[in-house]
């Protein structure tokens, strides 16, 4: 796993007992995970009593380094040996490595979910609603007397939702459902390969 110089430097300070004592280290590791997952860019996340005595700039560099390290590790699905060797490179003690790895295991799934949701994608269909209507007459033609369906597919893209509305006859709806069933059947066959 490749880490930039500033990340390595930040991690080195983090693992240095003369900069971060044991409780400070644990707290910063915890805070790093929290700032990625739940803190939503809250600047107060670093205001922990265990971190008060640490120089502000060093604290921020170590925090940034730890967060970057976490994201890279999750992105690459790093295993224990990869993480251990990265931390060894910055002279991290075995004890601290263990503390970090435990936190990594605990929060890995959540960070993975976070990373998976980042990125551009096509609108994603979540649901479909339908109405069966009977067309009796309109201003131009009377006695139409035909049933038809109004279908609405609700799609979501980057957090905003959009509806795709269209009408179809029964035959067309049968065609649509038939094609979807073909897709589902191929999916099933693919899973059995």
């Amino acid at each position: 796993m490749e880490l930039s110089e500033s990340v390595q430097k930040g991690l080195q300070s983090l693992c240095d007992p003369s900069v971060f004592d044991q409780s400070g280290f644990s707290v910063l590791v915890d805070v790093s995970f929290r700032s990625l997952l739940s803190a939503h860019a809250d600047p107060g996340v670093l205001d922990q009593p265990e971190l008060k005595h640490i120089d502000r700039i060093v604290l921020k560099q170590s925090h940034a380094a730890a967060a970057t390290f976490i994201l890279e590790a999750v992105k690459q699905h790093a295993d224990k040996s990869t993480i251990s060797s990265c931390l060894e490179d910055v002279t991290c003690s075995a004890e601290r490595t263990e503390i970090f790895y435990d936190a990594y295991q605990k929060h890995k799934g959540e960070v993975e979910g976070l990373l998976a949701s980042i990125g551009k994608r096509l609108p994603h269909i979540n649901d479909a609603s339908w109405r069966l209507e009977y067309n009796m007459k309109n201003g131009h033609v009377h006695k139409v007397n035909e049933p038809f369906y109004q279908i609405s597919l609700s799609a979501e893209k980057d957090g905003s939702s959009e509806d795709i509305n269209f009408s179809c006859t029964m035959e067309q709806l049968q065609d649509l459902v038939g094609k979807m069933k073909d897709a589902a059947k191929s999916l099933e066959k693919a899973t059995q390969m």
Partner: protein
Amino acid sequence: MLLVLSEEHKEHLAFLPKVDTAVAAEFGRIAVEFLKKGTSPKIYEGAARKLNFPVETVQHGVEGLMFLLTESAKLMISEVDFQDSVLVLGFSEELNQVLLQLYLQHCSQIRSILSLLPPHPPAYCNLEWRLDVLLASRSLRQQVVPMVTMKLLLSTGGGNHSVRVVQTDPATLQHLITTLEAALASMKTNHARRILRNIK
């Protein structure tokens, strides 16, 4: 149901008995052509000159015929009702028959032309699909996410088409299939059958 013709309309149609029945039949054919393809004023001028009538009279006559046909087709009136409605104009029996045949022959064509007029919501045309598996992205490597990409082709009236490309996951696809199958089943219920049978 009888067609009620306005005085103005009757006046316009009064032009027809003044020409031969064969010519009136020709005007009938022209009226149907105009309904299908749009009007062409040159025909009025040519006919007016040949028959020695003012252009306006010829035009009103043809337009009157067009309106008679569209109104009759709109209401889908029966043969008997059409004949009775036309009786009011006091035409010869031969002319009445010509008009009746014109109506009967072209009724369904005219109805389909008229049905292009009301507003249409986008209508389903086609669906194409494919199966993909997401293996990696810029933000996360080593993924295995199956997904179904679908291209929905919709026609938005007037020959225009719109294409929507969307994605869904296998579970949602199953849910969509179940939901839409329920929609299809609703047409077969007693309630729906009763309404479809009785409203004619």
